[in-house]
């Protein structure tokens, strides 16, 4: 029986008075890639930002409901959101390496700024993370170069390495390939396949084919509600909901 890494129960979210997520109850399986798909504005990004308590950083944002990480509610009173974010990492749509830092410092940032100073430890962590992100070979001689001097695809892998360096258990990806060319995209999809073994990946994407390629389970959201959730091949070939089918066949986008 597969374990659920993350479970949400009746998750609701608002931006001010705007009710963007409605009673979402989704169970994310461990060591799998779960795709969240749906048309623009359906709340996909908001959903994953609730999983690592980033949603609440926006002024006027509210949420209610339960989000369980390994059966512990991350929204329980008294829980420090910082510890949640260290266990649930995030990669953003547009690559955002820290502009004043080198490749090395970017990857090490999460560790250094949390008090880890031991050079050897940092060296090992940086190497390991860059390897996991399929970037080590390309940058191993240029660790001192500025993070922003890399190409778009490399920058995104750098951001993935940076997220990996703090050893999270879950990796959230918010449309990570939408700013990248097809070759860079392919590399990242390959990367996701390899990350699944050690991590739980949740990827938001507006690209249905990508979801089909990369994920084991898929959730389809529409206007803040969960319409359908199931095993990817099943959902794509034989959706149970009519709305899902209409979306998948491109009747609306």
């Amino acid at each position: 029986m597969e374990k659920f890494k993350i479970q949400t129960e009746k998750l609701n979210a608002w931006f001010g008075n705007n009710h963007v997520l409605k009673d979402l109850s989704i169970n994310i399986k461990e060591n799998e890639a779960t795709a969240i798909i749906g048309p623009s504005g359906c709340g996909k990004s908001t959903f994953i930002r609730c999983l690592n308590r980033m949603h609440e950083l926006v002024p006027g944002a509210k949420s209610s409901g339960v989000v369980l990480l390994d059966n512990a509610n991350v929204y329980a009173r008294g829980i420090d959101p910082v510890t949640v974010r260290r266990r649930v990492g995030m990669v953003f749509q547009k690559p955002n390496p820290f502009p004043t830092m080198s490749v090395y410092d970017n990857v090490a940032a999460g560790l250094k700024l949390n008090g880890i100073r031991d050079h050897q430890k940092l060296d090992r962590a940086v190497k390991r993370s860059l390897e996991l992100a399929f970037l080590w070979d390309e940058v191993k001689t240029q660790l001192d170069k500025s993070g922003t001097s890399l190409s778009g695809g490399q920058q995104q892998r750098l951001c993935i390495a940076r997220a990996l360096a703090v050893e999270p258990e879950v990796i959230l990806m918010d449309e990570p390939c939408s700013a990248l060319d097809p070759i860079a995209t392919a590399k990242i999809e390959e990367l996701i396949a390899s990350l699944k073994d050690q991590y739980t990946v949740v990827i938001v994407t507006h690209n249905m084919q990508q979801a089909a390629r990369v994920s084991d389970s898929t959730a389809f959201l529409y206007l803040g509600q969960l319409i359908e959730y199931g095993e990817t091949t099943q959902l794509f070939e034989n959706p149970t909901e009519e709305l899902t089918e209409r979306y998948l066949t491109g009747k609306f986008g």
Partner: protein
Amino acid sequence: MAVSEDSRPQQVRARARTGLVSLRPLRQFSGDGLFETFSTIFASITILIVVVASVLLVRGSIPVLQSFGTGFLSGTNWISVAGSESYGVLPYVLGTLVTSAIAIAVGVPLSLGIAIFLAEMAPWSVRNALSRVIELLAAVPSIIYGFWGLFVFRLWVRDYFEAPISRYVGALPVFQGTPFGLDILTAGLILAIMIIPTISSISKDVMMAVPSSQREAAYSLGATRWEVVRTGVLGYARSGIFGAIILGLGRAVGETMAVTMVIGNASGPAALPTSLFKQGATMASVIANEFSEAEPGSLHLSALIGIGLTLFLFALVINVFAQLMVWKVLKVRGGSVE
């Protein structure tokens, strides 16, 4: 990528080492609260300074205001000899107003001309180079303007400006007196030079922020180049330019050193600006001249602080007004302030 079975226990061990095992309850001391408190305190220092300044200015002025009441504002005497003291700031207020008026009268047309040239007509490279020069001009300290004004500029003004004027229209009251360059006119002209960079650069920015659709609309109606500038651009940018002028005025009012060195420093009724060629004084120049000689606690000092208070209020009103105008325009356009 093949993953060995012992990566998982390694992960757990690693997490245990760095203390990230479970969801910890909120630490009482997370540093964030301290950070916010700390920065709030520093930010409040600004408020503290403004409050203290206002209080001190008022408190320092009370003695002289009590002694002379409104006569302080309307009087023209300035006698600091103990026993027969009399203090009235009218000549200095007028001096400030007249020099600033000259500065505006001379400076604004020149500034606008420069701004129009830069915003509308100059090629990109000229605009950049010239803007840079204007900024350098704005950076020159007041005292250097004063020094130069005293030893160089006023000779020019005297020889090329005042002497001819005096010869031809010297009978007019506003040009009475033998000009030798250290007078209200020179002070006003130096102020004009000093405020041109401010007014022209802000006006230029405001004009450049006018959306090109305005210009295109004017062109399409068959307007000439100049008419496009006049109606399409200047009309739209009017309040921003007005704000820039007010800002320049604020600067002229508060300007001290350059004025002190070229205005001749008359005192009391002799400082009344009845002629452009007369020596005069402004609120700022009097304070600069007399402050270090005034006895602490004396009525003289209080009178000087009273001038300071008056000057402060002038500058405050002018600058608040200017801020409102400039901000209104530039915010609406969506452009950045500078």
